């Protein structure tokens, strides 16, 4: 009986050994994992405001190079806006972790029926109007104009929504309240109108 037991234990040991040898061979693929090339990552939103009468463009920029990492986006506004002025605006969204930077605006425009930018000012610092349309005649917002009136300080929030309900009440006029959908980009720019 003892020999039997010993035999059993021996068999177990042998099997264990074989197994480990096998696992060591299968496991030792020492290849390091490949770095993920993050697609459709949006790192940068740039709004360029051009004054109809000429002058230097005003650039509003939000840059978040670590994506969903802990670093907050860096927000910059190149200059104060001038009161009672109309600016022509253009938006650009990019992935700057790639070199050269990937222009994601092109993708937005390709699927323009599923995307819309919204401009939400506080303190009545400005009004915006859409200057572009998708195939259904609804606004997109890559091209827009922004008009200031009196001097004021506040903020301008620019939001890109994916799959908004463009036909919902007020949405085509730029009111985000009923838009639904998912937020792809959102940046809050501090604005001074002087």
């Amino acid at each position, binding site marked *: *009986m003892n020999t*039997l*037991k010993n035999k*059993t234990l021996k*068999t*177990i040991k042998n*099997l*264990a050994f074989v*197994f*480990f040898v096998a*696992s060591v061979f*299968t*496991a030792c693929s020492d290849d*390091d*994992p*490949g*770095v*993920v*090339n*993050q*697609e*459709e990552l*949006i*790192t*940068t*939103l740039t709004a360029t405001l051009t004054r109809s009468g000429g002058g230097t463009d005003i650039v509003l920029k*939000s*840059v*978040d*190079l*670590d*994506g*969903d*990492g*802990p670093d*907050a*986006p860096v927000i910059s506004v190149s200059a104060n806006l001038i009161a009672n002025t109309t600016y022509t605006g253009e938006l650009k969204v990019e992935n700057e*972790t790639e070199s050269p930077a990937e222009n994601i605006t092109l*993708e937005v425009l*390709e*699927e323009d029926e*599923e995307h819309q930018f*919204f401009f*939400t000012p506080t303190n009545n610092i400005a009004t915006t109007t859409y200057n572009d349309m998708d195939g259904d005649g609804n606004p997109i917002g890559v091209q827009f104009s922004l008009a200031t009136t009196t001097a004021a300080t506040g*903020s301008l*929030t620019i*939001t890109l*929504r*994916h799959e908004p309900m463009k036909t919902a009440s007020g949405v085509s006029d730029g009111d*985000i*309240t009923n838009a*639904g*959908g*998912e*937020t*792809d*980009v*959102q*940046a*809050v720019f501090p604005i001074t109108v002087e």
Partner: protein
Amino acid sequence: MIKRIFFSVLFCVLSFTHFAQECNSILKGIVIDYHDGTPIYDATIYIKNLQKYATTNFEGKFKIEGLCIGEIHLTISHISCETKDVKIKLEKDTFSEFFLEHHIESLKEVSIVAAANIKSKTIQSTVLNEETIAAFSNQNLGEALKEIAGISSINTGNAIVKPVINGMHSSRIIVMANGVRLQDQEWGIEHAPNLDINTSEKITVIKGANSLEFGGDAIGGVIVTEPSNIRLKDSLYGKSIVSSQSNGRGYSFHSSLSKSTKKGWYVNAKTTLKKMGDFESPTYVLSNTGIQSTAYALQTGIKKFESGFNAYYTFINTEIGILRASHLGNIEDLVNAINAPAPLIATDFSYDIDSPKQAVTHQLVKVDYYKRFKKLGKLKVQYDFQNNHRFEYDIRVGNDRNKASLDLDLSSHALSSSFEIDAKTDQKYKVGFMAAYQNNFANPNTGIKRLIPDYDKYDVGFFTIGNFIFNDQTTIDIGLRYDFNAINAKKFYSKSRWDERDYDVDFNDLIIEDFNTQWLVNPKFHFHNFSASAGISYQLNDENSVLFNYGLSNRAPNPSELFSDGLHHSAARIELGDLRLEQETSNRVSANYRFKSENTAMLVEVFFNHIRDFMYIEPTGTEQTIRGAFPVWSHKKTNANLFGADFSFKQHLGSQYIFKNTSSFIRGKDVKKNRDLIDIPSAKTVNSIGYYLERWYDFSAVLASEFVFRQNLFPDNNFETYIPTSDTTVFVDVSSTPNRYDLLNFNADATFKLSEKTNLSVGLTVTNILNTNYRENLNRLRFFADDLGRNYTLQLKLKY
């Protein structure tokens, strides 16, 4: 011994292979118990051709005279034994030893790896039988288990249902699928067990970590699913179940067929197909909640008493749509979704499953071999391989629209062996070892940062269990187990995250390469886990019995707790693991009181579980990204106390009515911070009254009320956040629990005998009869939509 009082069944085959001349030889022999070598009394030895037979005396001996020289065929039988045919060459007077096995119970279950330990009387266990399982044929494991007091579920919608045993789930529960520990990325809260419930005919739930044979880290418990027993006769049998349901406009089809022979060979095949469209709440369609699933299982083997083997293969592919309205862009979307009375996206009913969705394929191969040794016990060796391939699809744009956001390929190998020493009926021992290797591959082609990294994982475990029967009233079980786990991962961390977590202080030596904005890091961790269990059961008298047990167990952190790092769109949250987590240690004591009389059955189960370094995930703040703000959920540790009681009661009222109640109550406390634990199931009570009329087609009708109390004890993780588009600061309520709810369910079924071997059962089930609007606390989609409305299910079950 008492068990030796058996009746005899006899039949025999006799043939002469050559002509015999003299017919005056004597055959003497002894019939011995294979297990313990004791002689078997009253066994029958029969030579049909000669109409000669003998029975063994108290010493197991017999004698047959007047036999002819040559080969004779003997049939040795004993009721409850495997009848044995033996050929003997008789040349002169002969003395032979014959071994018989008298434990038909264990014989029936030789195909089941784990059966032996579940028989332990000192653990808190409950069994779901074939009938109950069949009733859930069109649903899933998690739903079926909720029939048991103390078992709830944590859901993502209504298709991803994870069982919760006394408040514990995911990595704290082991699911055994036909003897194989399921390795299916069970750490994920939105990863349902990859198991077709129809492959099981018996499901046992063990509460607590007292079944060390399966693993030492099952702090919550073990769910053991077992296939049907094989009939040891020449037969061909099977069953088919067709279910059709109104909510989801779905159907499910299951069929199984088994062929077995008297000699022990068997083969069986099973398949299940399911298709459901969008489910509906009482008031709206839950868009994109369809399910589609295909499963196959094939098993074959030879089952003899002395030795045998089984080979098993299963395949299951499941595609599950995730409620469209739960896919969110940032905290503002989350606030909008929480505050909306109905989902913001609700479209017309459809069978289409679009993003967000999951598509998971799980394959399992198992081979096992067993051999019994005379007067000693049983050796078992098993190898199993599993592959789990999980794709998760988020809403994406452009060329990536149909590309998975997560693509994890997990392969697991395990070799295990056990030896059960059962020669003595009053004490049994089992020793075993297990060695496992696992590899996870996270495909980088998704174009999305890996949520879980590539890793290799090694496990080795040893256990020993002893079962001692003191007397007719008292049984004691003792078990010890040691496990070694090692994990070797290679993970990219963004440098900003690395610093934010302060890993640059503690873990810079793990960095192996610099990738500009990211570090490639090689964390290697290993853990030693000791577990122990002890239990005693005592039968006070015919009606009353008690048991007490204690379990010590350790669980190493899982890959998600260590490495999680990224954005979960399905809940709009950033989830962060922690490299500093260590294993948690649970000390659990529990007790049962059982009363059973002719008309009444009652079971009261209580437990207390103290878990040191209990790992959990909870909101810890918000982070700003270019999409806006996101709540951050971090894996953390604390010390926790959990205690609760489960109650089951059954009362026959006359011969045709049965009243049943199952209730459960549990509390969880963070003892470090002196506050309530998150995700603790609500108290619940289910009352049912059933009417049974056996003489009329086995008719039964059951009306049940399921009452779930509001969970008033929860940690307050609410916070305020600034919403730029409305220029307001809002309160985000991610903690408050939904209201209590009461559901009324009805089931009726009857069985019609179509022929001698064919039965047809027809069942009708209505759930949520009153079409009540409700939300369940442990459904992660409760923030976005109501739970299911009324559903009619019609089920036809044909057994042949």
